[in-house]
Each structure stands twice: as C-alpha cells, then as structure tokens.
C-alpha cells in the first residue's frame, strides 16, 4: 500500500515510505537518545564554558565519559551517590554554572527525589537533570531500572520543566533548548535504540507540540519512544480503516502546549494519549486535566497500567504491557466508537 506522504511533516521520507510495511523500522537508522544527548552535550559544552557534567558511575553507559575526556576539569564523577550529586548540582548552579546531572531515571526521579525537590526545584536553580533509561526503555534490566513513573513524579514538582524527546535529532535540539532555558529541566532519554524519525530542521521549541501527521478524525498525542509507535498506528488506521489520525508530537510534557491540545480536541473531537509511563500523572493525565476543564471529549490512554513490568527485549516488553502500535490502533477504534456515541444527537422521543 502506498503512503500519502503529504500528510506528514518533518518526518524523514524513508521513514514515511516504510510506515505501512510489516516491519516499518527494519531499515531505519536507530540510536538510543541517551547517546544523542552525549553527543549534544559535547557541542553545548564547547559553546558554553559554564556547562559542567556531573556523573554518577554510569558515564560509560550514557556516553558522558566523552565529555570527561574532552573537558576533564568540567566533569565530576560522584560515584554511586545520586543524592550528593543532585544537591551539589544545586550548589554549583547557585554560583552561575549550568550543571547537567546525569544518571538513570529511576535514581534521578526517585532515589534523589528529596534533593531534586528541595535543593533544585524549590529554589528554582538552573540544574539540568539528564535521565537515561526513562520509562520502560531498559527492557532487559528489569523493574528496578525501569522508570515507568519518572514523568509523573517530575511533572508533579512545582517549577519543573519535563522534556521527553522521541529521537536523536530532536533530543539534540532539546539539549540545546534546556541549556538556554533558565531553570530546572528534566530530560528523559531512552536506553534502547529508537528510530531516527525527524529531519534536522524539525522546529523544536520548548513547550510547543508539533503536528507531525495531519488528521481530522482523532488525534494521537505521543511522547518519547511512543511517537514512533503512534506514527505506525496512524498509518495502519489510514490503510486498514480509512481513519484520518492526527499525530501530535508532545516532547514537552510540562509546560503542556495547551493551545495545540485544545485545537486538536476541537478539530478532531477525540484524543488518544500514548506514553511509555504509568497512566497516573503523566502526559495522559495532563491532557485529561486540560480537557475536563475545557472540552471534555472522549479520550483514551495508552500507558503502563497499575503494574510493574518485567525483564525482556525492549519491544517485546512494551508490547506485552500494552504500549505498541497495535494497542494504539485498538484504543483509537475504541475512542472513535465513543466519539460516535458522544456526538450522536439525543432523541428526546426515545428517552420518553
């Protein structure tokens, strides 16, 4: 089946062309976004001498050991001591440095949460938290290293800014945007490789969601690694059912682009939110909170239900826990059924 490429925006042509195939990303270039971050921070560090990198014994995993090689005096490996690293980052930021504190998302958002809340976010200090292994992107490592709650936790903090980019090019843009923003930023990266979806001219702006596929029946709002799944689902819906699904790439979970979400709600009348994160408190919750107060249209959430996952290859784990494109397709059909009921004129005679 041919793909109508004209509805896609900023998506690489080779990605678009393969979206309807059985294995859409079989030939796509892939990279873990943690490694895209490690590349970007070298450039950011080159441009701004106030940027320092703080590691916690996972610099080889994330790739920030390269920053240590290039700028040895501006890298500090705190060892397996994330709490100390986060509060030290706060102290550094108070003197004008721009620390990027790098660790796994479970440790950044949970083990060191007290420091992240009280020493960084409460005084709104200019610390960037670079969190790899976010969501269930570390499949084989198992539950202790799967940060399925990090987006929800970070979103709950006042003064927070939370970004979860989908691929390498937009990750690099996010790192630059975070460095330029004055205040705490939580950057969420994948452990496993994800397809390189977008062109380098992607219009990345902090807090601005981008429509990457046009659609009029329903909008799929996605973040981080589920943007790829959302694109596949949207094309599958078009090919198999003639459904016109918009895809809104919401890289910034907080502050939410309320304008783009409300516009999508108004124009498409149904929303599916797809996030590799628990369904409590993350992007789905943010969208629901906005809709319920403004335009309570039918909505469905793709996310980790009230359970822990398990070890396994990344794609197999997220498929078992309901996060892949077939699940998004089913949720979309479901929300479209709801939309049909929701918008059907009520017959007063039938009620009587």
């Amino acid at each position: 089946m041919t793909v109508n490429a004209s509805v896609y925006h900023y998506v690489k042509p080779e990605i678009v062309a393969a979206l309807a195939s059985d294995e859409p990303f079989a030939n796509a270039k892939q990279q873990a976004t943690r490694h895209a971050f490690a590349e970007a921070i070298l450039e950011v560090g080159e441009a701004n001498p106030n940027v320092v990198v703080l590691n916690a014994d996972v610099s080889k995993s994330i790739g920030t050991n390269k920053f240590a090689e290039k700028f040895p005096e501006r890298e500090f490996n705190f060892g397996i001591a994330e709490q100390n690293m986060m509060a030290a980052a706060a102290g550094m930021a108070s003197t004008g440095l721009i620390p990027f504190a790098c660790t796994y998302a479970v440790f950044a958002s949970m083990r060191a949460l007290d420091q992240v809340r009280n020493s960084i976010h409460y005084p709104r200090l200019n610390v960037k938290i670079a969190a790899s292994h976010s969501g269930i992107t570390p499949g084989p490592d198992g539950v202790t290293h799967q940060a399925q709650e990090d987006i929800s936790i970070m979103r709950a903090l006042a003064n927070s800014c939370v970004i979860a980019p989908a691929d390498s090019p937009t990750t690099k843009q996010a790192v630059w945007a975070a460095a330029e923003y004055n205040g705490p930023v939580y950057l969420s990266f994948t452990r496993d490789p994800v397809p390189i979806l977008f062109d380098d001219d992607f219009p990345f702006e902090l807090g601005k969601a981008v429509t990457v596929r046009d659609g009029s029946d329903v909008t799929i709002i996605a973040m981080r690694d589920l943007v790829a799944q959302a694109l596949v689902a949207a094309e599958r819906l078009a090919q198999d059912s003639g459904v016109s699904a918009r895809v809104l790439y919401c890289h910034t979970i907080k502050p939410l682009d309320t304008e783009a979400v409300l516009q999508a709600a108004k124009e498409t009348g149904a929303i599916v939110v797809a996030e590799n994160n628990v369904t409590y408190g993350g992007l789905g919750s943010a969208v629901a909170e906005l809709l319920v107060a403004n335009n309570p249209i039918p909505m469905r959430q793709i996310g980790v239900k009230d359970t822990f996952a398990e070890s396994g290859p990344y794609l197999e784990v997220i498929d078992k826990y309901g996060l892949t494109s077939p699940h998004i397709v089913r949720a979309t059909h479901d929300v479209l059924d709801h939309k049909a009921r929701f918008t059907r004129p009520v017959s007063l005679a039938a009620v009587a």
Partner: protein
Amino acid sequence: MNPSTQKPSIEELEKIAVEVRTNIIQMIHRANAGHPGGSLSAADIVTALYFRVMNVDPKNPDWPDRDRFILSKGHACPVWYAALAEKGFFDKSHLNTLRKLNSILQGHADMVKTPGVDMTVGSLGQGLSAGLGMALSGKLQKKDYRVWVVIGDGETQEGSIWEAAMAASTWKVDNLTVILDNNGIQNDTFTDDIQIRGDLAAKWRAFGWNVIEIDGHNMQQIVEALETAPTIKGVPTIIIAATVKGKGVSFMENVPAWHGKAPNAEQTQIALAEIRG
C-alpha cells in the same frame, strides 16, 4: 571589597551573640513555633562566622565573590535570621514575621525569599552537598571565596552527609569548612539513645578530613578554629564543636523537649533575663 576589615574582638563577639540569642528567643516566642534548642547551640559559631570570619556584604547579598554560608540543619534558621538581621541584610522588623504568611522568613530557610541565605535548606543532609558544589565551582572558576557549612550531629545520621564527606576529600576541597554543632540531642531525644555517634573525629578523619575539636561556646576557641581552617590546604576541614542544646537558657539547656517548642510569655521573660545576664 572587604566589608569585614574591622574585626570585632572576642568580647565584642560575645556581646553580639547575646543579641543573636535574644532575637532567637523573641522571634520563636512571637511565632509560637520554631526550634530554639539547636538555634541557641549554634549561636556563638554563627556569630563568629558573620561578624569576624566571613567575607560578606549585607548591602550586596548576591555579591559573586562573597563567602557562602549554609545552615544545613535548616530547622535552626532563627539563628541564621538573627545573625543576618544583626549584620544588616534586612531590617530587624522582619524577625517579628517568622513563619507567618507573606513573610520573607520561612519556617526553614529559603534562598529566594531571604537576603543573605545562600541555599534553601530544611530537608536534612543536603546542605553539605550544596556547599560541596559551591566549593567545586569556586575552584573551577578560580574564585577565592570560602564555603562554610554548619551541620548537626543528628543530621550525620543521613547517609548523604557521608556521600558528600567522601567526595569532598576525594576532590581535596580545601575551600570548604564544616562546623559540626555537636549538641547531642535530636528531635526525639538524646542522639546516642537513637543512634550512637561514636568517635565522630575518627569517622571524619577516616573520610579524609582535617579535624579540629573545640568548645563550641568558647568564642576564643571558635575564632581560632575558624581562622585556622582556611590555612589547611589539600583537605577539607571539619570543626567538631562541643555544644549545649539550648545554651544560655537554663531550663532549655540539654533538654530534648526544647528542640522544637516555643517558649510562652513567662518563659520568654526568664530566658531573656538569663541571656542578658
């Protein structure tokens, strides 16, 4: 710019400490809440720092080259507020607003709201790490400022204190000085009845620190230790100060109940009379 060139004598510092203690008692009484015990135990140390040792400018609290001070045992912030007001960072009338709505003086110190507060504190075990970060920045940016952090003995139960202790000696952060306000009492009761402190000096030496032990209420010893610490190179220094919780008010001294309780009007009168001698 060095506003502290005219150094007060030991006797003058002792007089300032009386004012600081007076303000502590009055503000906690007016707030009807707060932590007098640990504020009074740190009063002589904080007075010596602000009025003799630290290079700060109350008219320019964000001066980039200033010495930094962090009261990591943030619940004792009345002593910090009293010293800052006495030094002229803000008008003393603010002391009447402690813990009240719209006050610049929060229940635990807030660097955004209060001039002179260099780090937001309150959750124990974080101020030393923040001070470590400031000290590392100072070295990286080739600044001469020093970082002074007061921690409590109960606070050393927090594991992150020892994370910071290890890192500070690894990186030879000799522009950082910690003063341990070793008053032997924490929220519930006596520290050793909860977790045994053991040989604190040996513990810090084992973590690679230079240790100075003093009487934390002997102004001469306090000043000597604070002025010696900057001369020690290649290792961070901790001054372990033997203190008395509630120092200066007989009925508060060494009584765990006065960790976090405000004196009533009558108790305040007695306390102020004792402090003023």
